[in-house]
């Protein structure tokens, strides 16, 4: 009885550590240790065969990557895809939110519909768009023809493949920006808007000089959330083009996967992963910094 009380008293005293301990152990075993292992692997040459042991090569994997045309192509594709889709999503998403920010019937129904692309399985979405972009039977070319425009080769041409993938991502994730901005719009104070209208400003002026500046913090959060996800895009590209045609859509995610699990060059793959992490960190920190700056201004 006495020891039991003592024990439960001990648990109570240390509850703050006991409650978070399982999560901390998970983070250590599944995240910190694997990251350290990746760093170690990146300094070794190792083709996973079980026969040869990893061989220390110093920073040679990094040097090789940095002089590899394919690595820079993948970096450029990653940056172009991410900034392209997120910019388009912010502009379109904000415009849609402004359009929908009024009372009308079925408003909740519209919101529900907007949610569907976001929750749908990326592999399934990718397959549907594969059919839509099919050059001879796809809906995309039939729509173009109906508008009197010539056929495109969409995903099967190196010139248009990246752009086509961006269309899919913009379709899937613009609604998320719309929902975030809609939520932001409802929290805006109404007095500045009304007094500006009373003072004779046009709706257009009010939108640019009052609504948008007030929305800046919301927009920065939306940008950051979307950016992090856009940089991670793997399923869509892997299901449709696998980086092709001729590396036109090969991002760092795809190249890293191929290095690791098609060429089984774990050393190089690990080096690429670390460089990719550095890129993600730089972009994220820049936006966190911008957000803090913007926060000070308001």
């Amino acid at each position, binding site marked *: 009885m006495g020891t039991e009380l003592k024990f439960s008293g001990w648990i109570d005293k240390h509850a703050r550590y006991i*409650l978070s301990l399982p999560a901390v152990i998970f983070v250590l075993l599944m995240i910190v240790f694997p*990251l350290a*292992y990746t760093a170690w692997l990146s300094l070794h040459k190792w083709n996973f065969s079980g026969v040869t042991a990893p061989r220390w090569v110093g920073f040679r994997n990094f040097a090789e990557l940095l002089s590899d045309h394919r690595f820079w192509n993948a970096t450029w594709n990653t940056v172009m895809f991410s900034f392209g889709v997120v910019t388009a999503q912010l502009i379109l998403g904000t415009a849609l939110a402004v359009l929908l920010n009024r009372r009308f019937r079925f408003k909740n129904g519209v919101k529900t519909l907007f949610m*569907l692309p976001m929750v749908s399985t990326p592999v*399934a979405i990718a397959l549907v768009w594969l059919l839509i972009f099919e050059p001879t039977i796809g809906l995309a070319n039939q729509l173009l023809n109906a508008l009197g425009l010539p056929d495109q080769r969409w995903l099967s041409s190196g010139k248009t493949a990246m752009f086509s993938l961006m269309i899919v991502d913009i379709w899937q994730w613009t609604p998320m920006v719309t929902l975030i901005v809609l939520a932001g719009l409802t929290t805006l104070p109404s007095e500045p808007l009304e007094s500006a209208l009373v003072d004779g400003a046009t709706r257009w002026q009010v939108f640019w000089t009052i609504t948008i500046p007030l929305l800046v913090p919301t927009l920065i959060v939306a940008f950051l959330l979307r950016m992090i996800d856009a940089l991670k895009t*793997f399923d869509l590209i892997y299901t449709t083009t696998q980086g092709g045609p001729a590396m036109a859509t090969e991002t760092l995610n795809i190249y890293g996967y191929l290095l690791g699990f098609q060429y089984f060059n774990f050393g190089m793959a690990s080096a690429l992963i670390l460089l990719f*992490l550095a890129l993600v960190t730089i972009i994220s920190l820049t936006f966190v910094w911008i957000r803090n700056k913007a926060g000070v201004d308001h």
Partner: protein
Amino acid sequence: MSSVATEYVGRSKAQKRISSVLFYVCLLAVLFAVSIPLIWMFLASFQTQAQIMSKEITLRFTPTFANYETVFERYDFVKPIINSFIVASLSTGFALLLGLPAAYAISRYRQQLLGMIILVVRFIPGITFLVPWYLLFSSMRLIDTYLALALSHMLINLPFIIWVMIPYYDSVPRELEEAARVDGSSVIGLFLRIMVPLSMPGIVTASLLSLIFSWNNLIFSIVLAGVKTQTLPLAILRFVSYANIDWGALMAAAVVITIPILIISLVTQRFIIQGLTAGAVKG
């Protein structure tokens, strides 16, 4: 009072009607753009290969269920469905078990360092862990097990659950906790008997989305699953290369994987929208 404002307030009825019509035209265009890929998926899944391959858009046709028969009989989609369901449930269960107490501790004891680390984890792309996890799990002979898949999906689910839950625990008044403490409840008892029931709406949101993320996940399953544990996204991916583009069957497979999510989302839409706008989604 300026005249512009009165003009604005007193727009004529005709003007109002035009603007209202314009609004509904725009709305219809947007709804069309958002829904057409999903509608197309459903339509094509009930069409024959000949109907899909024809250059005309066929909207009137007698639906065929042959594509669904192909999916279930020839390619045996039942096993992957069960696998996906097991992995999603396990990873969500584990993530709740670890995430709920951690979120409470972060909120109650201001463990900001842990909170920061969890936030950073959400920023790390899933691809980062493919190589080390593959090597570590294969050295422990855990490749092609439900455990490895569930643990890997927790990379997404655990941080998500913690970040959805922290605001719920922040919003519980401290007096309530203190009153319970005076009544002799231990911290763990307080957490289980008061905090968990109070934060049920948050737990529902977090669990639903966590199930969906896991169900949708491809990147970890591609490396860690095998013949025994093949999940749905993986099965469909294999199907693409097998099927030599049997479009109807492919679309039926896409419907099979998406429909449970669409139904759950429609039924619980309030929770889903709230959770989705709360944070990042991909692995």
